[in-house]
């Protein structure tokens, strides 16, 4: 496993866990996570994935860091104002943990480009806060059979849903159209100072996924009501009529610059 003495020390409080030995830390190290969105949904998740030793992190974001972003986006600092958020995030990853390979994609995801990027990663953490992108990433992950961890936030409500292609519902099975659901439509809504909570819950899920321990959120969505500080879980089912993963599929490839959502409806 050839961890250096420094690396063993860095991860010692994780390796000491009965559920996470040195072998599991090696699995975390070989993990490759594509993070879509470099804003408040992904801020804490990105930092903890880096600190915990996930070997390769890709961050996709086409926007620059603004003053407004600094509220709730602990991934960026005042010195990164004006810089692309993906690039700023990749630098922060380097400061937290030099062992991690961080790659910035300062672009808007769309069409075939999505597949090109995704092929280099094991799974995706979707934190874009934008429903076009969310449907596009869902489609790409199902077509390419990559697990997908979605974090969404609207107002004080957050939602986590994971998609294991072929093993349960995809995002479209549950939310066939963004109009059907407030969170799906509004995405992040107002920049909530603590929007990173749901992303961080998904980061914990990703660690569990890599080490293969615990029960993952499968076939269930987790809802978080921040102002009441209550968490609910709800069962969700696969839809046999799903346009993407049902019996009569109409979405078979990724198209369009704004994601495949328009193409599908």
């Amino acid at each position, binding site marked *: 496993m050839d961890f250096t003495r*420094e690396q063993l020390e*860095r991860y010692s*409080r994780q390796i000491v*866990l009965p559920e996470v030995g040195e072998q599991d830390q090696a699995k975390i190290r070989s993990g490759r996570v594509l993070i879509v969105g470099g804003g408040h949904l992904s801020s804490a998740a990105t930092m903890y994935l880096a600190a915990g030793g996930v070997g390769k992190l890709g961050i996709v974001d086409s926007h620059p860091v603004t003053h407004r972003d600094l509220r709730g986006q602990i991934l960026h600092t005042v010195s990164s104002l004006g810089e692309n958020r993906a690039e700023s995030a990749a630098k922060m990853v380097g400061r937290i943990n030099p062992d991690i390979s961080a790659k910035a994609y300062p672009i808007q995801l769309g069409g075939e480009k999505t597949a090109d990027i995704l092929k280099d990663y094991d799974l995706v953490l979707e934190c874009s806060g934008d429903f076009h992108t969310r449907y596009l990433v869902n489609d790409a992950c199902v077509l390419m059979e990559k697990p997908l961890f979605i974090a969404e936030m609207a107002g004080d409500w957050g939602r986590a849903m994971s998609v294991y292609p072929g093993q349960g519902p995809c995002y479209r099975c549950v939310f066939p159209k963004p109009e059907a659901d407030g969170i799906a439509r509004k995405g992040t809504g107002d920049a909530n*100072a603590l929007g990173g909570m749901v992303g*961080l819950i998904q980061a914990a899920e990703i660690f569990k996924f890599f080490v293969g321990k615990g029960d993952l959120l499968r076939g269930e969505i987790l809802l978080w009501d921040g102002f009441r500080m209550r968490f609910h*879980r709800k069962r969700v089912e696969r839809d046999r009529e799903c346009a993407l993963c049902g019996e009569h599929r109409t979405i078979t490839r990724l198209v369009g610059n704004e994601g495949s959502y328009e193409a599908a409806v």
Partner: protein
Amino acid sequence: MSVQVRIPSPLKSLTGGKDVIQSRGTTVGEVIQQVISSYPELRERLCDEKGQVRRFINIFLNHEDIRSMRNLDTPVNDGDSLSTIPSIAGGAEFTPDHRIFRHGISPQWAELKGKGLGEGKVFILGAGGLGSPAALYLASAGIGTIGIADSDVVDLSNLHRQLLHFTNDVGREKVRSARAKLKALNPGVKVRTYETRVTSENVREIIRPYDVIIDGSDNFPTKFLINDACYFEKKPLVLGGILKFYGQATVFHPWYKGPCYRCILPDPPPPGSVPSCQEAGVIGAIAGIIGMIQAFEAIKLLSGQGDPLIGRFLVFDALDMTFSEFNIVRNENCPLCGKDASITQLVDYQQVCQA
């Protein structure tokens, strides 16, 4: 009657990894006896040498303490669930003597007339696994003043979970490292640092200027010290604890309503009852989740909005990604805030051992 017995993750190693055990009986006592006969290793944790359930073991039937009902004679029904909740400090684990009563009317929270965030002052005890996310999020949310106390320097083994500190901070005082990160995130935030151990000598003076106190400590003596100090200074305390994949959070504000820490755990666990003081490890993201919950609770207390975790004990188990809530109310025999309180000044407890 068939009853589900829920095992929290710190005790799962004693049940072959099972988190739910199906058991049978007509009373809580019978159900527990059957569990112990199937899992003998649990016996030592749950019972003393005489076979009696330990004083420090708390058992909840459907989220209510059995002691508020008929204790071990409480009858059970088909489909009921029994839980045990260990209290955790960070390295140690312990099962406290909870006093759970039925929760009263939900608080009219606006009565506290919270300050705006920009005028708010929050004190964070510890710049570690819980203090890091709490401080970062409070700074980014625009809290006016953050006070942070820690006497340690940054160690390489801190970095996987303490995100106030980066690789090139190893060896630096934690409070200095913290100040730099908070200022980089929000130059407008006032950061006051206390590079000292918080003791009975200085704690009341330190917390006096602040509106809300966040506990980011990792040991029982400090948790009791900050609880008592907050009671004497009439400050709300946002408690947090993490161990392995497991976390807890609640808010104590007995001058307003609800219990204090001593209402649910009268004294620190006696030496020897705590399995180990070695830091037991934790997944960094779990610390992040609890610290972030603490930051959000502080914001709710300051802004006077939302429904804070007063009288609500939140238990988070990341292994199965469950969040459970238990009702906790004031114990009228509490040695600190009860009617015949015996504790009238701060007590220094011996560290059971050094972390």
